[in-house]
């Protein structure tokens, strides 16, 4: 960093631990975390879900929670020891000196209060505005946050704003009192790629004006853009910390390396297979198994930071480099490599920092996928209109045509509401198009009566974004999968078939007797895939199959899909709003906007040289890690502020 900033850190944290006593023992959510942040600097905290990022952030505001036990060797902000603050002193700090943008952006504004009131609250509480002047200030803040028509938004309720606008209003309320530090917890997770870029630009702008930024994300690509420093958290610990450029270009901790490897990049060299399940079947279950029963939060796998994790490196069960020492002894923080431009060290908690992982663990045999020339699914000019509440008809899908060839993977991308799911449902003959037809194997499909269609339904199957709700809540995995196996057979046979299918998707057959609700997100998605495979389909329609999953799990599922495509020769109609994902899985891609196809073509061609302006825009908005950039150089960011709300 340049010398404009005083070298005394704005925020200094050492040995921060947060524990929650619960009915099932003490959850040590954050353990011995050291952080420091100077004015105008951006520190990114990265880590998978449940790694303790949010708890760390909340602890900085004294909001760790009612039952939380917070301890720290140092907890200082602007030179004040935060550990000694009373309730009133905390309140004077919050909002005024430290702004906080909550993780759940869409629900962080009181839905029963007008947006203006919410933004004004920080000013009101800290007595920073006179009553008659309040509205003007709020409008100024909204404008600053890039909210168009602030005079209108000001009087609207949160639900009347799009997600991006809500996020911006929330940021406006967090910066209202001009805090020196802004803590932004996953500010872009819920957003569309284009909106995501805008919000990142907004944060960038704040930092440029001197506000220090603590940016929390599970997405390395997002932080790569902004961060000066990165701290990688795993299971409540900071496993690696250092200057962004250095850390991203040469990760020291295996977890960081895995995270980086799992990032699907739209400009990745080719449609290769990401590492799938480095430890044989069921790797995503490892964290669960270790944490004992019920370590589930928000349907995602969670690393339990309970007593069981006390011995050894928490990442050992998932680590390709783990040896006996890793499993028995917690690695202490050690400094690693050269310091950054400001002379600080990189820190890592690992016995094998920076060691190259054995290539064998990730190599999967690449067999060419045979794409035949005949179309299994032919979509011919389908159109579907819905009546909106105001009575007008809106076209969800308009005159869409494409072919899905046998064995092929066709990606369908487009922003939210562009009609991807509607297209999928028409292809699945769940809904009947208003115009156009869908042919399956060249025979009529969408026009049939359900009775005539039933016998052929086994040929085309669905894997949904939310697999859990597509399972009968009373059914065990055995029944869920077994039911999909066609034909009459004794229970035993059916169970065997189900077990075999689980094996095919890399799941332990022991899961047969579990209820889906008791599975991790990745496991559920695998069960859904197993069910889709059961009738031996020619086509599987995947509607956002990985968007609810963690990056690492996401990578495993994508690899699984690619493998199945090879092995079973099924064709995929792969729907996603994430271009990186599509790039990784598909041969061809079709881009949708407002219900229409704007571009279709081979993945490589479309990504390299998009023909439609919209595709280019989509591509430009994708955050990426520029691994080639040199240390100290800030990544360039393209910010598009107009366009998509």
């Amino acid at each position, binding site marked *: 960093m340049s010398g404009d900033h005083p070298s005394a850190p704005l925020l200094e944290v050492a040995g921060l631990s947060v524990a929650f006593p619960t009915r099932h023992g003490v959850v040590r959510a954050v353990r011995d975390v050291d952080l420091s942040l100077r004015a105008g600097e951006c520190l990114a905290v990265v880590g998978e879900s449940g790694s303790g990022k949010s708890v760390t952030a*909340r602890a900085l*505001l004294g*909001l760790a929670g*009612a039952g939380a036990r917070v301890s720290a060797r140092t907890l200082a902000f602007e030179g004040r020891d935060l550990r000694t603050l009373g309730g009133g002193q905390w*309140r*004077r*700090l*919050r*909002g*005024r000196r*430290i*702004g*906080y943008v*909550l*993780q*759940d952006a869409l*629900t*962080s*504004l*009181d*839905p*029963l*209060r007008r947006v203006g009131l*919410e933004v004004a*609250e*920080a000013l009101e*509480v*800290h007595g920073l505005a006179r009553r008659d002047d309040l509205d003007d200030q709020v409008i100024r803040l909204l404008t600053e946050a890039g909210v168009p028509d602030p005079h209108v938004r000001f009087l609207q*309720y949160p*639900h*009347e704003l799009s997600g991006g606008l809500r996020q911006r209003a*929330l940021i406006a*309320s*967090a910066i*209202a*009192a001009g805090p020196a530090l802004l803590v932004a917890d996953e500010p872009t997770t819920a957003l569309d790629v284009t909106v995501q870029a805008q919000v990142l630009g907004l944060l960038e702008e704040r930092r440029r004006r001197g506000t220090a930024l603590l940016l929390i994300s599970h997405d390395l690509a997002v932080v790569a853009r902004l961060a000066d420093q990165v701290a990688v958290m795993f299971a409540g610990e900071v496993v690696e910390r250092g200057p962004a450029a250095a850390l991203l270009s040469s990760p020291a901790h295996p977890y960081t390396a895995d995270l980086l490897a799992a990032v699907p990049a739209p400009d990745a060299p080719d449609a290769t297979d990401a590492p799938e399940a480095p430890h044989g079947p069921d790797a995503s279950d490892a964290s669960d198994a270790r944490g004992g029963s019920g370590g589930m939060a928000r349907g995602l796998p969670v690393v339990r930071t309970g007593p069981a994790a006390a011995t050894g490196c928490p990442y050992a069960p998932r680590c390709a480099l783990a040896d006996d020492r890793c499993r028995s002894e917690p690695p202490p923080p050690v400094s690693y490599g050269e310091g950054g431009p400001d002379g600080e060290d990189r820190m890592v908690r690992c016995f094998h920092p920076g060691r190259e992982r054995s290539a064998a663990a990730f190599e999967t045999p690449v067999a060419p996928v045979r794409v035949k020339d005949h179309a299994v699914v032919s979509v011919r000019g389908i159109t579907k209109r819905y009546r909106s*509440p105001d009575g007008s008809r809106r076209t969800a899908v308009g005159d869409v045509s494409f072919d899905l060839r046998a064995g092929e993977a066709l990606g369908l991308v487009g922003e939210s509401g562009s009609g991807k799911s509607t297209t999928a449902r028409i292809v699945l003959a769940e809904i009947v198009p208003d115009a156009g037809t869908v042919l399956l194997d060249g025979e009529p499909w969408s026009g049939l009566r359900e009775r005539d269609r039933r016998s052929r339904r086994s040929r085309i199957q669905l894997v949904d974004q939310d697999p859990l709700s597509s399972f009968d809540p009373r059914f065990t995995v055995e029944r869920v999968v077994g039911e999909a196996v066609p034909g009459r057979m004794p229970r035993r046979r059916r169970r065997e078939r189900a077990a075999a299918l689980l094996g095919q998707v890399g799941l332990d057959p022991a899961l047969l007797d579990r209820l889906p609700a008791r599975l991790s997100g990745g496991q559920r998605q695998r069960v859904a895939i197993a069910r889709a495979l059961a009738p031996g389909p020619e086509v599987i329609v995947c509607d956002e199959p990985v968007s609810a999953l963690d990056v690492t799990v996401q990578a495993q599922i994508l690899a699984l899909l690619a493998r199945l495509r090879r092995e079973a020769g099924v064709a995929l109609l792969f729907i996603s709003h994430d271009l990186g994902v599509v790039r990784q899985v598909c041969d061809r891609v079709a881009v949708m906007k407002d219900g229409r196809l704007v571009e279709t073509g081979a993945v490589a061609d479309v990504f390299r040289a998009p023909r439609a302006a919209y595709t280019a825009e989509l591509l430009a908005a994708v955050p990426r890690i520029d691994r080639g950039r040199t240390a100290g150089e800030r990544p360039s960011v393209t910010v598009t502020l107009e366009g998509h709300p």
Partner: protein
Amino acid sequence: MRLVPGDPARVIAGGVQANATPQVLDAIRDEYGLGEPIVVQYARFLGRLLRADLGGSYQLGRPVSRVIGEQIGATLALAAGAAVLGFGLAVTLATLTAGRPRLRALSRAVEFCSISTPNFWIGILLLAAFSFHLGWFPVIGDGGPAALVLPCAALALPIAGMLAQVTRDGLERALDQPFALTARARGATEHRIRVRHALRHAALPVLTLSGWVLGELLAGTVVVETVFARQGLGHVVVAAVRGRDFPVVTGVVVLSALVFSLINIAVDLLYGLADPRIGAAA
């Protein structure tokens, strides 16, 4: 309306002691149209209903509308008092105990007991304790405020128990929401968060309960008026059910269905006002 054994003409004529002569009974049947087929009677009843004419009571010898008019005041006073008491108690209890585990556990136990207790039993116990033994409240009264206290309490307690639980639930849920944390992160005081933010959220589920509350109140007045020997529609309707005085029973039932529907419509409207999301979702 003569669906059942029993002879309304007898009742109209004055019942057992009157022992009316057949001539008198015939005259009465003519007058009330009781001799006609049930279908005709029912049609007439509906016709009258459309004209807001509820007919005449068999037992009381007066038009049902007048009976209701005379009695509705007492019942309204009781129900309104109980509603105010119930909501008041519930909101106070909920705001005091929300998010405070020990107090909440205690309060929950008490609420659960009161929800599970029939209000006539509460009434009997209150009556025994506060009127008979302590003499704090009158046993009977001419609608003065003191005489309303115990009946209102008997009526309000089970309702308050339920409302308190729902209110607290709503409060705690609201306090748990990201927006509450956001408000805290802005430096807002706990009091401000509870009053400015959470209470409105808690009001929404409570509002949905108002239909239920009204039903409970109506049902409760029937019993409580009996326990406390109060005048009112509940009292009248019980006597009418016992005496199979259909015009009165149907009159009261139709009236309360009307009130019930009106209140539910009002609640729906209120809900839209209280929650800006409703209008948009529609």
